[in-house]
């Protein structure tokens, strides 16, 4: 048994052999060739989005900020802006964070809120790029305004670091309402609720 383990260990510790110069690989093992042309790359990188172009300026003047604000005034009209905070929590927590809190699979990589904000006090791996959202409900922000702040943050703080989740379709309007509930509902752990 010990001998076998030693053998495995020895085999595992061998340095990676450089591939033979003339080695040929079976076609199906090759990774698909990338077909991104320079033109396609340029279109994807230099996106035709006026607000984005303006925010790329090294000096963000008052005029730029004003114009970006103007460009960021399109919002879907909804009947209600308060969704389901539990669904919001699923969007806000990454699968790793969710597993740590609840011991079961859940969460998603769609919101990534904790990359930049702290909120639920049980989560300590949270960023400080944006303000802490702990007890956000106490701020008295109306659901519709909060919806807009998540859907397109540039309507309030132009060129801010926060992604325009709704504008780019990273989150649907409905998903944004769930995050609104996650931040405003008194039952949500963000506001001290006991899940």
């Amino acid at each position, binding site marked *: 048994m010990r001998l076998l383990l030693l053998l495995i260990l020895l085999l595992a510790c061998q340095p990676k052999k450089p591939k033979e110069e003339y080695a040929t690989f079976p076609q199906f093992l090759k990774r698909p060739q990338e077909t*991104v042309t320079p033109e396609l*790359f340029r279109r994807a990188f230099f996106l035709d989005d006026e607000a984005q172009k303006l925010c790329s*300026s090294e000096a963000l003047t008052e005029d730029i900020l004003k114009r970006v604000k103007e460009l960021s005034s399109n919002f879907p009209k909804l009947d209600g802006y308060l969704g389901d905070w539990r669904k919001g929590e699923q969007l806000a927590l990454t699968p790793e964070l969710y597993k740590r809190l609840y011991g079961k699979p859940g969460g998603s990589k769609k919101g990534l809120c904790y*990359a930049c904000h702290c909120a639920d006090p049980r989560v300590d*791996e*949270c960023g400080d790029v944006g303000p802490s959202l702990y007890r956000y409900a106490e701020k008295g922000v109306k659901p519709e305004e909060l919806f807009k702040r998540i859907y397109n943050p540039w309507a309030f703080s132009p060129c801010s670091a926060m*992604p325009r989740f709704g504008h780019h379709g990273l989150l649907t309007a409905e998903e944004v309402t769930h995050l609104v509930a996650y931040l405003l509902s008194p039952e949500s752990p963000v506001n001290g609720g006991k899940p």
Partner: protein
Amino acid sequence: MLLLLLLLTALSFSQEALTRVGLQSARVVLERGKEYYLKLTGGSKLTCADCHGPDGESLKGAYARMPRFYTDLGRVADADLRVLSCLRQYLRLEDERLKSRERELVVPLVGFVASLSNGELVFVELRHPEEKRLYELGRTVWYRRSGATDFSCALCHERLAGKQFFAEVLPAPIPDRAPARYPAYSVKRDELLTLEDKLRDCFERYLLYDPKKGRFSFESRVRKPPYYVEELIALELFLMHSVNGSTLSVPGVIK
């Protein structure tokens, strides 16, 4: 029992040990680069060493000045493109042989050539009009907000540098002089990455958008810029120029 203990110690790498292991593996790649340098030949029957000397004496300091304009190429090239062009034009490696193995040959060679400049100071000049143009383009790319997240290189690595992102601190590569440590060995990926490789990865993770779909899609999107595309070399030029005067020390070790 003893074996188990051994295994456990081997697994509980400290950062220092990890760096040592990383450097060790990186040196294997550099050795391979040297082997290619001495032995690799194509249609012209020339090796790199035939033109640049058996120890690469004439290439000492060359990497510290890249990217730069090359008259024979008629464009600004980084080390990756310079090496590839040599393989094509001077060694005359057949396209068939380069097709699938291009990076396998280029990366170790770039690593070897870069290591010849260890200890030299980065000194990227903007003399040729093309170098000036690419510097400006690189600056534009650095500040350009892009993709579905509206991120830019500068947003996270300049404006927000030092802030916490999840449990990580956002690094500031220019003040930290990080570009002077590439090519670097990635411990996680067990691979040597050139500066170009590293920057392509950043584009994949944060900056690209699917122009075909019109909206961001998690499944299908333009993933990385093509190799040697002007914008990428421009960004390298901008970064290397920004760390002019730092001591080149390769291979670096990254996560």
